[in-house]
């Protein structure tokens, strides 16, 4: 298999294809505590993220709806699975890690040890986008949407560059 083929297979590995075709937590939530719309103007991809938070401030439920490519759908699907039970700070730490991975940047050691190993492994599965710069925005759309959902000061609309 050529290097290119390997990159392509890494990008479209079974886990991604499965989440892309059968996204988990793919539904609206009534009366969510946070709701944010993410939009990728270049592709027209769009998603709505719903979060509910429990009394301890942990994410109790995370769900989404939208339309997009396999990468953006899989990323959103896997993100909502990971978010349950996380605090806002933990969620932001995951995003910081994922952003570094997607951009092929060095990951902060301290950040890495603070993360759940299983979450790291799942985000690694999406890291194949680093070979496809134009597709990074697909993988990060859900996370940017999360960022604006968690930060009420931000306009509740994530737009990927």
């Amino acid at each position, binding site marked *: 298999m050529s290097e*290119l083929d390997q990159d392509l297979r890494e990008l*479209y590995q079974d886990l991604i*294809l499965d989440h892309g075709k059968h996204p988990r937590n793919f539904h609206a939530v009534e009366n969510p505590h946070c709701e944010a719309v993410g939009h990728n103007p270049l*592709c*027209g*991809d769009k998603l709505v993220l719903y979060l509910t938070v429990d009394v301890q401030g942990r994410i109790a439920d995370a769900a989404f709806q939208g339309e*997009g*490519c*396999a990468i953006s759908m899989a990323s959103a699907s896997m993100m909502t699975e990971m978010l349950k039970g996380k605090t806002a700070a933990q969620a932001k730490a995951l995003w910081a890690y994922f952003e570094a991975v997607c951009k092929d940047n060095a990951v902060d050691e301290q950040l890495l040890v603070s993360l759940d190993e299983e979450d790291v492994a799942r985000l690694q599965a999406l890291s194949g986008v680093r070979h496809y710069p134009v597709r990074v925005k697909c993988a990060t759309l859900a996370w940017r949407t999360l960022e604006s959902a968690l930060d009420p000061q931000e306009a509740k609309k994530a737009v990927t560059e």
Partner: protein
Amino acid sequence: MAAIEKNTNLWKKDFPILAQKGHGKELAYLDSGASAQKPRAVIEAITHFYENDYANIHRGVHDLSQRATASYDRARQTVQRFINAAHEDEIVFTSGATESLNLVVASWGRRNLKEGDEVVVTGLEHHANIVPWQLLQKQIPFTLRVVPIEANGDVLLEKIQAAITAKTKLVSIAHVSNAFGTILPVEDVIAFAHARGIPVMLDGSQAITHMSVNVQKLDADFYVFSGHKIYGPSGIGVLYGKRSILKDMPPYQGGGDMIESVSFEKGTSFQPAPMRFEAGTPPIVQAVGLAAALDYVSAIGMEVIAAHEDDVLRYGQERLGNVPGLRLVGNAPRKCGLLSFVMEGVHPHDVGTILDSEGVAVRAGHHCAQPAMEALGLMATVRASLGLYNTRQDMDELVAALHKVREIFG
């Protein structure tokens, strides 16, 4: 035509960039609708101009400036001949079709539109023929009448005619759709509108490279296109406007070269068209490059190019029609230049990435025509668009690469 072999292309070798491989495979460049590649003649004309004749125009008394000015003026004449405009001063150089449209909206639109007036566009316009009007609507509350499109991506003459009323001040429509390749019935629209005294602007961005355009025969009042889509450099476009209309249009931008005299006390007077609309240093080298591109396609013949592309298009249409799970989008009876499609269960962006890995360059997305996509219930399509260098073989490569998509996505 008989001389043209179906699977080889005499002109492909004129385009140095196409000699490279695409990820190690034969490159099938099917994105000319976004921007066409440049023949050696254009690249050499630009290099020659920079190495021998470059200076600013209409300014220096020195030899270089005079030579540069002569080249720039010759480029305007080349454009005039290419679209058969009656007069050289009917050709305004802009930065691209987008600026040409913005110029007409800002200058003609602001001068001629008032509350209650209507401008007719179709549902398949490129954003560049929608958004400038919307921006002007914030200043002048005129109405944008949108002609609905058909499920096959066609626009029916009777629906355009029905949208034209006593309030219509301008019909501004695409000559060819950039999303579906539909050729609009522009001749009949112009005849109908002119019978009612209404001018017509055509966005020829996608038409100019696929057919012979004769603005006098069309009797278009405005015709716009970009240089980079017809094998010229980016950064230059053309606004053709009838002399009788351009003469009454106010300046669009102020600056050097567009004035007759400037005075703080006595006010400023302006040059006639086209200079009035070309403020500042224009795209001089790009004009020279565009002229070389037009000379290049003229030497082949637009009818010859159109016939060749039509053969590739029909062949591709038939082959794509046999790919399982593939649906062609936009099957108007008259179309040219591109094939738009979707694949069941696979998003166009994923298709685009996999095709690229097979050396097939396409565009995936809404093609800057979101209303057209929405009208057909789509977010995006894959678009394979043609240039004169494409062949049936490119279509075969596209089809082969689509099998790889199925292989990965099942």
